[in-house]
Each structure stands twice: as structure tokens, then as C-alpha cells.
């Protein structure tokens, strides 16, 4: 077995392993004066958190990412910028049609054009007090340093790691060869008969300059961004919790079903995380509570989707072995998700209270198109890859597609009409450079 060497001191933190703090602030900044902004960057560099193992968990972590406009503003030359993929250069708003950000999710309705900001400083910590201090300190520090705070979003973990619709979130993260010592079922099913157990993904699926699942390094930007950097997908997704709950009750009432079953069929897991494919009739706390079992499942044995619908949210976003060839196909479309909910939870039994709530979706990928955009466009917003025609994701919903979700069974039934429960309200494509590239950027701009 090839030994995989990753210079963890050159990789920013929270990429290969999640920080797992309960609180985060996402501060978007704009560069005014490039020299002053570089000076501020140089002052910040010693406190940027890397992927090196901690002797003790720090009180606060800081990581940096840049939009294409930000790299340009900091003096990155045109030749280097041209080496970045078109999707990154164009920015997320320009990719709205590809991503299905239409209707209420269209960029013209977004809170603010995050893609026009230049850099994103992400801060993780444990207390609201410390988070507030960090943001105040940032505002004070950038004043007079050629930077302006565009805006700040804050996010916080909900009880039991659930998202606002009430489901335990973030369980199915890919394992990475040479990095992750997570439960083996966090990887991908084997692609070949001679492989046993679950296979970790190659680090090149997430970090530039390393071999990916194809066995060779994939496309990467030019030096100094050619090694240990990664693309960051940032999306602010508003969730209509009251609407989702009412929809589930309505659909269950029409079929004479338990609303919890309808919700589970939409998602592909019960709220506690129990996979439908392992326990199709009810949640099983023995499975949900066992890290070795909660992700140890495949779909090839449920080809017809009788246990977990073929179009369920988690089955679409990670079809595992459902597409054949083991995980050879799925393994090329995985993401490291590092998002966190924002806004107050809506208590059960309470109607819409007018508060905005949702998910700050953050994902790291080596290839924006092959990984994030492909999953969004071909697996969530379309059903063709799964033999489902124009059916789209019943949780994300939206105006596109057939307007229904097919729940396979004997007899099958349809969730119809689909509502829109998730609306994109902001988003940006950013680049998270390795530490050496970050230093170059802070010192000379990388032309």
C-alpha cells in the first residue's frame, strides 16, 4: 500500500478534518488598498489554523478563503487567474442556471452578492461571548488596513447535531486515505470484487496536488496555488420549517400514513439518523447510536427503492453503490461538508414565526464542477441518472422537474405536489489556499 504523505502544516484547518466547534462566524471582507490589506494578512498568518493535530483544542480557530475577485484585488496576475476553472472565475451567481438557483432562489433575490466580497475569514469557537469578541476585534483590526467588513454571518450547532427540519446532519462524510481514522463505513463501498470493506477516498478528491480517485492528480490552479489548496462552496440556504412540517402532515394525511414515515421517505433517514435501508419501518436507536452501523449500508441490495426511495435526499447526494461499478462513480462526486445551521430553532407545534433560519452550507472539493455542481444539477435537480425522469429532490424542492417525488413500493405512491422548502439566499465560490500560497499572497500577490 502506498504511503500517503500530506504536509498538514501546509493545509488550512477544517478541510481534511472537521473542527467540530458549536459556533462559527463567516466574515466577508472587501479589499480597498492592496498593500494595507496584504499587511493585515501577514499579521493574521500566525493565527491561521492549520490541519496539524492539536495537543489541546484551541479557544478559537481562523481560516481564510478568497473569491476570484479577491485574488485579483490582492494582485494575483492574469496568467495565474486563467489557470482557475471557469466556474470559479464566473462565480456562483453566474452559475445560477446550472445550480437551479431560479425563482425565489435566483441571485437577484439574494441577501447580498457574497461573490463580490474578496475574502472570507471563518472563525470557530465555543462561546457566543468569544465569537462576539472575535468579530469586534476583526472590525477594529481591519479599520485602517485597507479592508472593509462586507458583512458577517453567524451559525451555531443545534441540539444533537440536527438541522432545522429535525434530522441529524453531517453523518455521511467521506473518509480520506492517509488522513481519516473514522469508522470504516465513512468511506465508499469497494469498486472491485477483491476489495473488502469500505475504501477511503484519495486525498486528491479534496486537495490539489495529490492523486485523486483516478490515480493521478486532477486539474489544479497554477503555482503557488497548485498544492494543498481546495475550493470552498459557500451557500446560505433558508429553510421553511413550518412549511416542511405542514407539507409532511398534509401528504401523510392524504395517504393515511405516519407523518414521520413521509419525512423519512423524503430524506432517506429517520430523524435520528437511522438509515431507511437498514430499518425501513421505524427508527432504531441501536443503529443511530452506533457510529460503526449508522453509515454501514449500501443501496445495491435495495435496487428497487422499496426500503429507501431511489429519489430520497441522502440517496441522491451519495448513491453509494446504487449506480453500479461499486463506488467508482459515486467516489468522483463526494464533498467534505462543514456547514452549520443558522437562526433560532422553530419549536414543535409552532407556526411560522417570521424568523429566518436555515443552513450555512460549506463544502470543500478539488473540482467545483465534477463534485459540487454535478451533485446539485444532475443528482438533486434531476432524476435521469436514477431512472426517475424529471423527478427532483423532494426536500430541496423547487419549481423545476416533475413536481413529484416517487416513493417506490407495492403499490408505489407519490409525494405531490412538491413544495419549496429550501431557498438559496446567498452564495459564493472561494479558494482556500495552502499555507505557503497564503504567505505568497500576503507578501507579493502571486503574479
Amino acid at each position, binding site marked *: 500500500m502506498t504511503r500517503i504523505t500530506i504536509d498538514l502544516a501546509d493545509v488550512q484547518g477544517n478541510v481534511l478534518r472537521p473542527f467540530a466547534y458549536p459556533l462559527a462566524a463567516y466574515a466577508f471582507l472587501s479589499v480597498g488598498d492592496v498593500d494595507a490589506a496584504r499587511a493585515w494578512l501577514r499579521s493574521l498568518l500566525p493565527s491561521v489554523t492549520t490541519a496539524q493535530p492539536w495537543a489541546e483544542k484551541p479557544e478559537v480557530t481562523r481560516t481564510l478563503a478568497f473569491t476570484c475577485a479577491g485574488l485579483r484585488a490582492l494582485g494575483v496576475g492574469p496568467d495565474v487567474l486563467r489557470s482557475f476553472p471557469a466556474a470559479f472565475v464566473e462565480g456562483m451567481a453566474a452559475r445560477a442556471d446550472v445550480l437551479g438557483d431560479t425563482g425565489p432562489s435566483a441571485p437577484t433575490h439574494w441577501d447580498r452578492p457574497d461573490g463580490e466580497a474578496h475574502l472570507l475569514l471563518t472563525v470557530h469557537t465555543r462561546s457566543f461571548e468569544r465569537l462576539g469578541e472575535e468579530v469586534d476585534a476583526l472590525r477594529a483590526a481591519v479599520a485602517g488596513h485597507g479592508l472593509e467588513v462586507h458583512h458577517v454571518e453567524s451559525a451555531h450547532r443545534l441540539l444533537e447535531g440536527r438541522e432545522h427540519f429535525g434530522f441529524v446532519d453531517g453523518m455521511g462524510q467521506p473518509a480520506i486515505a492517509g488522513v481519516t481514522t473514522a469508522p470504516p463505513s465513512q468511506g465508499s463501498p469497494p469498486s472491485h470484487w477483491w476489495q473488502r470493506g469500505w475504501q477511503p477516498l484519495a486525498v486528491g478528491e479534496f486537495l490539489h496536488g495529490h492523486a485523486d480517485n483516478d490515480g493521478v492528480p486532477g486539474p489544479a490552479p497554477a503555482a503557488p496555488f497548485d498544492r494543498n489548496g481546495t475550493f470552498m462552496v459557500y451557500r446560505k440556504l433558508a429553510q421553511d420549517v413550518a412549511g416542511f412540517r405542514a407539507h409532511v402532515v398534509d401528504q401523510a394525511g392524504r395517504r393515511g400514513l405516519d407523518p414521520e414515515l413521509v419525512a423519512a421517505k423524503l430524506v432517506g433517514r429517520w430523524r435520528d439518523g437511522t438509515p431507511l435501508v437498514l430499518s425501513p419501518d421505524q427508527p432504531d436507536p441501536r443503529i443511530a447510536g452506533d457510529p460503526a452501523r449508522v453509515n454501514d449500508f449500501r443501496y445495491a441490495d435495495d435496487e428497487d427503492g422499496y426500503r429507501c426511495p431511489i429519489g430520497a435526499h441522502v440517496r441522491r447526494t451519495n448513491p453509494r453503490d446504487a449506480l453500479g461499478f461499486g463506488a467508482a462513480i459515486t467516489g468522483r462526486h463526494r464533498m467534505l461538508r462543514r456547514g452549520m445551521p443558522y437562526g433560532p430553532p422553530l419549536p414543535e407545534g409552532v407556526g411560522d414565526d417570521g424568523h429566518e433560519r436555515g443552513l450555512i452550507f460549506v463544502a470543500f472539493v478539488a473540482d467545483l464542477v465534477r463534485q459540487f455542481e454535478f451533485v446539485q444539477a444532475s443528482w438533486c435537480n434531476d432524476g435521469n441518472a436514477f431512472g426517475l425522469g*424529471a423527478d427532483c429532490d423532494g426536500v430541496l424542492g423547487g419549481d423545476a422537474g416533475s413536481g*413529484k417525488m416517487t416513493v417506490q413500493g407495492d403499490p408505489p405512491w407519490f409525494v*405531490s405536489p412538491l413544495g419549496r422548502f429550501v431557498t438559496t439566499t446567498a452564495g459564493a465560490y472561494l479558494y482556500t489556499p495552502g499555507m505557503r500560497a497564503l504567505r505568497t499572497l500576503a507578501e507579493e500577490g502571486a503574479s
Partner: protein
Amino acid sequence: MAFQVAVHAPVFPGCAHELRTVIAGLPTGAASPFAAIAGTHYARLVVAEGVRGGTVLVCSAVTDAPEEEFLVGLLTRTADLPDRVWSLCPGWPGQVDVPRAAAWLKQHVVRPTLAFCTHDAPLDRVQEALALRARLIAFAPRAQDLAPADLQAAFLQEFGP
């Protein structure tokens, strides 16, 4: 019966980016230049790098028209598309000279052994079938709660006996 057509033309060194920009700017769907060629099921242009040490422009199509008829349609019915893309390929004679341009395209034709899509029916039959499928998909959720007799009546009303 549908035909498969594929044209592989080498691209001048250093022109891949320009070619991709041209292709990315082309309208798609019903506004696609290919839609002006009657009987086109599917057609696309792809820039493939690293093919035989260079860059190749691949034009592939599934069409009701035989190869030559499709190539002439390409030259005469798609406005200036051929000049915009193949002028970046060595030897392109220009679409104004249709016979020479058609001969040039034929020189670069390769025989597909695996088609992106293939149909045993002409385009109008495929479109009819798709329209019927769309009606059936719309009908199914609407009718799922009906009692058997009502379902049968609704089906007959929608699709006829």
C-alpha cells in the same frame, strides 16, 4: 431509423480556450443552431484535449438524416456556426463553399461504435412518445387516490379507450 454522425477535427495549437468560449456562448435547447436541422435528435460540440497529442473538436449527432444530408444541413442551416468553430481547425475551406466544406467534414468523419443515444424511431415518433410519457407522469400523482372504478374512468377520459 436514426443515423450517428461524428466529426473529429484537429484544432490549431493554443486555440482550445477560444473554441470553448465560442461553444459556451451558443444557445441551447430549441434555440440551438442544431435545432434548425430537421430530424436532429441530439447534437453537440466538445473540445477534447490530449487526443493524439493535440486538441480535437468533436461534433457528434444522432439524426434522422443520412450523414451527407446532415452535413449539408449543418453548412446551410446553422447560420455562421461552422465558420465560427471550424475556422480554428487547419484546412477549413470556409462554409461559403458548401461542396468543399462538406468534403472537408467528410474527411474528418469517424465511424461511431457507441452512440450517446440511439433510436429506432424517427424524431417525430420520439417526440410523440415523450409527450405521452409526460401526460402519464402528470396523470399518475393526480389519480393515485382514486378508487379503482374512478381511476379507470379518469384514465379512459385522459388517454381514450
